[in-house]
């Protein structure tokens, strides 16, 4: 399906990442957003509140992030595509409904424009320190999808992708921006509506008497949906439930349900994992990075190559599910992997786990507040290559 032209501002624009993400959401078909202001993410919903009344969409500013994060889920069951936006402190409050969305298989998108933490931390300055929180922040076992744009253009493109994945797998999907990407202004090209692929919601047409709201369908292992008012008398609960959606709190049903919530993402991970790879074949060192850090890393890689080092780069566009298969393939062939990120060691743990001791791992951490200096990453490359 193509995007609805009503929402699409075709053309070349000069936008910051926050505004571009908003346009991505609109192009993807989002017609509802609930939010609560927090720097550096607020511009996304500010723009949405401006755009919504002119495109048949609704924006409501809620009383807090707990409310915003569940209002969007109510809206989804009412039949629209919906998203919310926040940053660290608000993201912490949203954890409850990330779990609820995963449990109830409610397609929705969360945009987290990361800032330095913990707690109130650095409201106006960047970090990439919510990367584990987005995966593990809500209690229990579940899987989500998280994408990391490194430019305003990607804020647009990946927000569309996020909505598409969320519909495809009925799962909450996260656009993990950071303050720099959110506030940097660059050229953003918005294609014509008919050039934008949009995943429609998978409304069921199954018989009303036999339809099961949580019975897996197809390769995605993802159930079809019915909304309130469709006549299916859906029941949606955060309790452990059977395929009908009825609470059934037995170990057997728990096992079946949680395994599917997890496997629908894990089994399809290779399709969901988007990466940008350069010169990995024959490299001695591979630099792994994502989001804004990938732009700094690129400079370091270029300098190292100019010095004659054999360096490849792997940019994680999808951070979760983690592209295990790629790291597993790289690790035995290189001397080492350098991981650069704006935190003191989050995604590097995944890299270490997947490398399984087959090569050296060097972490270039940073507590946030600004981006790395390319020299910091370069130094790590040089050490590993030695």
């Amino acid at each position: 399906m193509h995007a609805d032209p009503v929402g699409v501002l075709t053309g070349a624009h000069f936008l910051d990442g926050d505004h571009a993400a908003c346009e991505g959401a609109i192009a993807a078909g989002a017609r509802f957003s609930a939010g609560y202001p927090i720097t550096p993410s607020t511009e996304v919903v500010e723009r949405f509140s401006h755009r919504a009344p002119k495109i048949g969409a609704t924006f409501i500013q809620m009383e807090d992030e707990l409310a915003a994060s569940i209002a969007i889920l109510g809206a989804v069951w009412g039949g629209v595509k919906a998203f919310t936006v926040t940053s660290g402190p608000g993201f912490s409050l949203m954890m409850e409904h990330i779990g609820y969305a995963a449990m109830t298989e409610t397609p929705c998108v969360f945009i987290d424009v990361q800032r330095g933490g913990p707690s109130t931390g650095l409201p106006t300055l960047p970090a990439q320190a919510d990367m584990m929180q987005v995966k593990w922040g809500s209690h229990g076992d579940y899987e989500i999808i998280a994408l990391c744009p490194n430019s305003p253009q990607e804020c647009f493109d990946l927000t569309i992708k996020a909505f598409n994945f969320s519909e495809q797998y009925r799962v909450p999907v996260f656009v993990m921006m950071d303050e720099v990407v959110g506030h940097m202004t660059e050229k953003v090209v918005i294609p014509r509506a008919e050039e934008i692929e949009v995943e429609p919601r998978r409304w069921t047409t199954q018989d009303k008497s036999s339809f099961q709201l949580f019975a897996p369908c197809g390769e995605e292992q993802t159930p079809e949906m019915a909304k309130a008012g469709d006549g299916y008398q859906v029941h949606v609960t955060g309790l452990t439930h059977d395929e009908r959606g009825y609470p059934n709190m037995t170990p057997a049903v728990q096992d079946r349900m949680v395994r599917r919530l997890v496997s629908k993402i894990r089994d399809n991970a290779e399709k969901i994992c988007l990466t940008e790879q350069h010169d990995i074949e024959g490299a001695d060192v591979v630099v792994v990075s994502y989001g804004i850090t990938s732009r700094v890393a690129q400079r370091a890689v270029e300098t190292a190559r100019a010095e004659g080092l054999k360096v490849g780069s792997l940019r994680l566009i999808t951070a979760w599910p983690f592209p295990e298969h790629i790291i597993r393939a790289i690790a035995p062939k290189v001397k080492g992997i350098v991981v650069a990120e704006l935190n003191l060691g989050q995604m590097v743990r995944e890299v270490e786990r997947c490398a399984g001791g087959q090569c050296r791992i060097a972490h270039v951490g940073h507590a946030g507040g600004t981006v790395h200096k390319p020299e910091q990453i370069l130094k790590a490359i040089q050490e590993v290559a030695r």
Partner: protein
Amino acid sequence: MSSPIVSITAPANPVEDFLRTDRMPHIWCPGCGIGTTVNCFTRALLESNTDLNKLSIVSGIGCTGRVAGYTNLDSFHTTHGRAIPFATGLKLASPDMTVVVYSGDGDLFAIGGNHLIHAARRNIDLKVICVNNLTYAMTGGQTGPATPLDVITATAPYGTYDPAFNLPYLVEAAGAVFVARWTTFHVKQLARSMAEMFKKKGFCFIEVVSPCPTLYQRRNKMGDGLDTMKFYKEMSKTKHGAPTNEVGLTKSGEIIVGKFVDRERPDFATMMNAHLQHELGDQYIQAEGPVCG
């Protein structure tokens, strides 16, 4: 046993159509009032001719929160305290839907208290039914925001000393357009009030004082469900239009019941549409409900 009357020509119990009968029996204790409120709810839906395909029920967590799971309607059992913001999203995305929030006093007034007052302030068109059993029942009878002074609870073994909310007073102050209170003894009045509420636009609230014999009454030596119902019968006084600041509940005092508030105030969607229409003119495209894929 001696034969109960079983008439072959008996019409079905009117509640039956509204139940997920494959989930019966329910989990509620003997003498619990929640089931009684469900009877009133279903009679009110019948009486008000509400289109059941255009009705959703949203609950939070608790014994009362289980109502959503037993009703054969589009039903959402959400997270603790968050039924109202979920319902807000649902209502705004699906403006033709009647959205009922059915939950407990703890869910709506403690963990969900902030959401409740803001939904009332905005006058979101929600029909809120609060079963007030004066305690956190699901978790074992701890003190809640509506627990009166001087009662024993699981977390107040020497008696409560923190004052309770007067629910109608709070909700009226926050902006609700319809506020009533009944007890589970007042089945007819409750059903009538609910039917009236379904027809009213805006943030509506009905408190139903209800027994939790297992955890509240027993611990306070107030007998079982039936004793509590007799207590309600004896101690209730109908005072329509009573000033809500005078209707606070106490452990064993009078229970003022009736319709306290019924006023007109444009609801959120009406305000939003009128305002945006005025400001944007032809540029305003009103959201028209479900639009995806």
